């Protein structure tokens, strides 16, 4: 894990930035929302993939690509959370009192 973080740091940083941008936008966006049911399914899939990755069940290059994908998704979510939180914070401090 530590090796992947150091070796692929640039791609992970890019994932954080993509996530940050998405999180920044998401606060004010009026688009479709993922349903709770869907979110649960996605979480389940994520857990399954993590289990597969940790269990080293997929060999060779696909195994590496799965690890890379999971790490990038994790970094993306961190970026999203940071972006959304910061946007919310900015909005709450700059919005005119009504």
């Amino acid at each position, binding site marked *: 894990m530590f090796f992947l973080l150091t070796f692929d740091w640039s*791609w992970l940083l890019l994932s954080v930035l*993509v996530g940050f941008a998405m999180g920044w936008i998401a606060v004010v966006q009026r688009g479709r929302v*993922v349903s709770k049911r869907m979110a649960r399914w996605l979480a389940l899939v994520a857990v399954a993939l993590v289990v597969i990755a940790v269990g080293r069940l997929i060999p060779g290059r696909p*195994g590496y690509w799965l690890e*890379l994908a999971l790490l990038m998704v994790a970094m*993306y979510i961190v970026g999203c959370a940071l972006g959304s939180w910061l946007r919310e914070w900015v909005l709450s401090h700059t919005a005119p009192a009504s």
Partner: protein
Amino acid sequence: MHGFFKWSGKWWPGVIPLAMVWAFAAWVSTPQMEANLAARTTSTLNGTVLDKTRIEVAGRDITFAADAFSDEGRRSAVAAVEAVAGVRRVNDETRLVPEAKPFVWSAERDVARVTLSGNAPLPASKGKLLEAARASLNGVEVVDQMSLSRGAPPRFDNAVLLLVDQIGKLKDGKIAVSDTNVTLSGMARDLGGREAIAAALKNLPEGFSVAENDIKAPPYVFQAYKDPVTMSLTLSGYVPDNNVHVAIAAAAERKFFGAKVVDNLKASIGAPPKFLKAVVPALAALSRLSTGTLVVSDREVRISGDALYDAAVPQIRASLAKDTPEGWQVKAELSVKPAAAPVDPGVCQQLFSELLSKGKIRFEPGRASIDPDSAGLLDRLIEIAMRCPTANIDVAGHTDADGEDAFNQALSEKRAKAVTDYLVNAGLPPDRFTALGYGSSQPVASNDTDEGKAQNRRIEFLVR
């Protein structure tokens, strides 16, 4: 927290650019990752003793194949690869090199190259052997057909290095090791090579033994050529040592009276037994030929040439057969020189005097037995006597003044008689020769000095 969940429901559109970034990252970083892991794995394995090492990287997984020389070495190499940072899985395809039973090794030399084949215990020993072979063969092509195997006997490297050194001493042949038994066959390059190899084999490491040593020595050749035109005797080839050299040179001087001896002999070990005892009678036979060649090769004496008269041929053959040591072979190809043109008795006398001024008929001290070294001279005298068949010849014996007159008189008569008997045995009519003894009554030099005495002890041929 509620807000967090609310926003997270709207994060999904970013997954699309994220997927694109991921695809690009996978495309770019996978070869980099694989190259990085391969390089670090290879450097980790530096210093381990393995053969046929193969490292294949797919993503973060490594397929590691190698031949190891011990189970411990195999396990530690796999552990080292597993410990490389970033490696996820190791597909262990290592194995132990096969064990050879018996553990065989050989070096074979032919005209063009030396081929090393069989088993070697470790890559390092294989390298050492090749290096040693190239060093000792000095430019000869060395072909490596050795394969690595386990099961070498202790001190194998030392034994084989010693044997590789011996390959340089062979012209062709094979040196093989099977477990601890060494077998050698072939032909040594130089005289003495066989003995040098046998001596080196005594230093084989403990446990190794010579099962069979069939190295042959190159022929040990001694040659002599008698040339009547230049009146020379050319000696070439080998003699075992300086003492034998001196003995042969002295024998040549005695037997080939008046001839110039060209001595090109070289000393070398490897002579067959009783070399000198075979060469001296062969030189005696050559001395009786008008022109001839003597080749002594190993235990074979080959002599060819022209005898001076018919009766000499069986005599020469008989004395060669009698005097050549047991175990030696004699091949004599003898013919008879065409008879020289007859001459007047006066010319005969001149020829006798000329010849006897160059060489003297020798006898055993105080006795009337002719020294065998004088056979060549007597044959020449016989040849001259045959050229003047009508002349009657007095064979006169003389002694020095030492001893009693009566003894000297009798001795001179007996010696003159011995010479006439020799002439008659050669086929000359007995009535042509008269044996006369003069004791010390007709000195030609002073009897006060050894040199003068030697001149006074003589046989003269006088044509009547």
